[in-house]
């Protein structure tokens, strides 16, 4: 596409974004990209071809966190001008919207690196255009099955995407059997990210753990310790282009999931030439992506109550987050379950999630909220061997659940909130946070 043709397109998109913002109809994330993608499909190619280095991150869980971790690292490197799509805006229109927003009126992008989170089914549609230097695949869990049909299909879609990028280096979860085999039969150089066997066995993958073969290079995390403040410490060793030894790594995100995300971010940072100490500092200063362990505080008068948000989106993330809660004394827990399209309309997955893990937690009280609060309450009734000291409360409106939990908590206490995607957006909005925080 002639670059000159971009000028009116970019002007149109910027005008539209401005109008949308002015009229209060959202942050203008998707619509400009949607319209431009529909009527000027070549605009995406014309924009991405200007970016020297592109990283595409896909997989069912951890895309946003991995992207945020890598960005926190790269942003510390002098001369790097980075672009990233907003959390969750990971379909082609969301990516295109961001590119349009970042370009100047001449359609030029002054960007050295694009770190893109790409939805699984979108990857094969845009991979040939993007030609990323690195493709990272975090994991492949069952996610919102009613949206796509089946995980086998998702695996195939990602593989198709990788096959269109023979030059890309691929970074995969090396324990997940589905991601570990993605490049079998393809020529792509592949690095495997894994946890030491003691930890990996706790993770609910779809099939037997992949055993890393001697010729498969990658990073392994060991000595993993989740601290009471829900930071995580671990050690990394392994091989990328050369040997890697990082005895002390810390992330602000709790849990084994985030160790994989950190391994991926470190591997990608190193592949992009970032020095070890810069990568480690970046990881330590990283703030959890919204809903992924972030803490929000509500204050009324002198009383402050903290809310720790742990997004749940499928049985795997739910079960693992519950694992973390075993370590929390006098657990106060809000479960916020919606069944909107972005959450998955079928709540069957609550029964695949191991709520039984709460039997080892020290529960103070539990409150169920969201459209499917009652389904959650039934799930808990069957999961718990003995009911908690306080009867489980069910309050559909999230606004009321927030108010009730605030009133119930003592000043300074932390309440854990496990929301589905749209429940999290609603919760954050009630706390005065909007989507555009990245």
């Amino acid at each position, binding site marked *: 596409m002639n670059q000159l043709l971009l000028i009116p397109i970019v002007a149109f998109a910027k005008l539209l974004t401005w109008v949308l913002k002015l009229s209060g109809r959202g942050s203008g994330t998707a619509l400009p990209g949607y319209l431009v993608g529909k009527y000027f499909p070549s605009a995406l190619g014309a924009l991405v071809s200007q970016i020297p280095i592109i990283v595409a991150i896909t997989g069912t869980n951890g895309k946003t966190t991995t992207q945020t971790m890598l960005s926190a690292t790269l942003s510390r490197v002098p001369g790097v001008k980075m672009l990233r799509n907003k959390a969750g805006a990971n379909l082609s229109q969301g990516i295109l919207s961001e590119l349009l927003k970042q370009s100047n009126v001449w359609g030029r992008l002054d960007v050295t690196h694009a770190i893109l989170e790409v939805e699984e089914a979108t990857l094969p549609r845009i991979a040939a255009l993007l030609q990323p230097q690195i493709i990272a695949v975090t994991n492949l869990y069952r996610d919102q*099955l009613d949206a796509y049909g089946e*995980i086998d299909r998702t695996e195939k879609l990602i593989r198709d995407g990788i096959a269109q990028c023979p030059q890309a280096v691929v970074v995969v979860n090396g324990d997940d059997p589905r991601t570990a085999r993605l490049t079998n039969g393809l020529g792509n150089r592949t690095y495997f990210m894994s946890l030491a066997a003691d930890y990996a066995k706790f993770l609910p993958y779809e099939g037997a753990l992949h055993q890393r073969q001697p010729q498969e290079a990658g990073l392994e995390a060991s000595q993993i310790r989740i601290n009471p403040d829900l930071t995580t410490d671990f050690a990394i060793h392994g091989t990328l282009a050369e040997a890697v030894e990082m005895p002390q790594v810390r992330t602000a995100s709790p849990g084994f999931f985030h160790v994989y995300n950190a391994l991926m971010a470190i591997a990608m940072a190193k592949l992009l030439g970032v020095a070890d100490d810069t990568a480690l500092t970046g990881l330590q200063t990283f703030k959890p992506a919204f809903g992924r362990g972030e803490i929000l505080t509500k204050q009324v008068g002198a009383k402050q109550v903290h809310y720790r948000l742990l997004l749940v989106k499928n049985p795997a993330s739910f079960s693992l987050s519950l694992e973390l809660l075993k370590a929390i004394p006098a657990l106060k827990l809000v479960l916020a379950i919606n069944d909107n399209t972005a959450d998955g309309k079928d709540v069957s997955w609550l*029964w695949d999630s191991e709520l039984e893990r709460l039997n080892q937690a020290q529960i103070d009280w539990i409150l169920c909220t969201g459209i499917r609060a009652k389904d959650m309450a039934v799930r808990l009734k069957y999961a718990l061997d003995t009911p908690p000291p306080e009867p489980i409360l069910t309050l559909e409106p999230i606004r009321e659940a927030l108010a009730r939990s605030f009133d119930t908590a003592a000043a300074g206490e932390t309440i854990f909130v496990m929301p589905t995607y749209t429940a999290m957006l609603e919760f954050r909005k009630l706390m005065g946070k909007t989507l555009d925080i990245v």
Partner: protein
Amino acid sequence: MPYALTLTHLYPDHLNLYGDTGNLIVLKRRCQWMGIDCTVQSLTMGDRPTPGHTDLYFMGGGQDNDQVAVVDDFHQLKADAIQADTGAGTVFLGVCGGYQLMGHTFLMGNGEETPGLGIINVRTKAPGTEVKQRCIGNLVVELSSTIHTEMTTMYAAPKPIPRTLVGFENHSGQTYLGEGVTPLAKTITGFGNNATAEYEGARYRNVFGSYMHGSLLPKNPHFADYLIWLALRRKYGDDALTLPALGDREELEAHHYAVQRYGRG
């Protein structure tokens, strides 16, 4: 004498989509709450069931690959025992793929119709012109009045029994009932067996098939109890046997909420 039941979960590792495990969790807990000694055995690829050992079979649905993987094993190792047991009145619940596999034909992922066990006289076909996509969405149905009437006699104490079942369907196969098979329920919202007939599920003797995930039994405790009751009555040959009436406050609240929110009738 305390009652005891043996439940057999078929292919829990292959046919485990859409929370169908929840059905076992519910059967097990309810037995525990009712003082019934309940054992769950899992039978997967390569295992051969012992005829006469099981009181209640459960089989769920799986992904296309997994469903293809179990078909031969199902015919070769499981069919004889299941045939003999269900012929003798053992309770069987099949959901989605597990329902289809008990019929004459079921639908493979590639749209191919493959022979099932033929224990229950139903056929599952590929969608034709009348339905273009998968049947996906909330499902609210009205129980067959025969079953509902029977349910009113199963408890030791009076207890409200919903006339409805609630769940979530997600299937492309279109199931048609043959002679001798009665529908489990009439559709209020959603498709059920197929896009045209307005009926959901099937019953033949004590074999039940349904397209309801959600999972099926947690929000339909009356149906869970009905299966337990049928299994106990058959096992102990006692037609006057009744079950303790559990409280079910949370279950029925969730049930009625779903009827109200997703039922259009």
